């Protein structure tokens, strides 16, 4: 499974990057490929290309604020959660993502 996503929080200095690390660790544990862009005080890092997004099975947006380039995810299955959820339950979020993809494939 290939996941893309964006992390962004209100101040843009702490939760964004903790969420990123938690999700990367959880994806690694589940054996999924993940690429997360961060939008914080220091700007955008690890930016997703259109190809990254087109190749992905699902997008996880762990965001507390409006993000730049939201329209990039218009054509992809996506889950949007607050950064708190990504920090508190990253493994559950991975399970949920797998379920969502499975349901879509069966539909």
């Amino acid at each position, binding site marked *: 499974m290939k996941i893309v996503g964006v992390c962004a929080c*209100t*101040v843009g*200095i*702490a*939760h*964004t*990057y*903790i*969420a*990123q*690390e*938690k999700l*990367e*660790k959880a994806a690694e544990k589940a054996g999924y490929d993940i690429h997360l862009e*961060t939008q*914080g*005080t*220091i700007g955008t890092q690890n930016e997703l290309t259109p190809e990254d997004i087109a190749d992905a099975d699902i997008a996880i947006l762990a965001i*507390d604020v409006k993000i730049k380039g939201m329209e990039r995810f218009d054509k992809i299955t996506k889950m949007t959660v607050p950064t*708190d959820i990504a*920090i*508190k339950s990253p493994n559950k979020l991975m399970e949920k993502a797998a379920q969502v993809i499975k349901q879509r494939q069966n539909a």
Partner: protein
Amino acid sequence: MTVVEEALDPNAIVVNSSAKSKDEVLKELIHQLALAGKVSDEAGFLKDVYVRESEGVTGIGNGVSIPHGRSVSVSEPAVAIATLTTPVEWESLDDEKISIVILFAVTDSTEGAQDHLKMLSEFAKKLGDDDVLDSLKAAQSVHEVIAAFE
């Protein structure tokens, strides 16, 4: 210098603080940051930290909280850490009391502060690693607190 050495001023690390409340530990850490020359107005910064507290929970679970504020009272981005002898009440994702407080001080303007802010974000990323948090909780000296991140 590593990210950790750069981000962590030993003077802004308090091991086994006896602070009895959220307010006490915030004031203690802000005072340390003021002594280290990172915060110009302690009361002003405290107010901005509480503004962020009012916007959402800063306890990230596992007994750790990450209060932070963007403030004109911060002269240079910095981080301060306290380990507490007695856990204190704090709004957190898992409703556990807090025994480790990591305070991020962020400048109001990013101008001229990009390098420091990048360093803080790299430092924050380490807090997403449970192994780091476990080492931090076991730390009994300033040296061990710094080592927890390396």
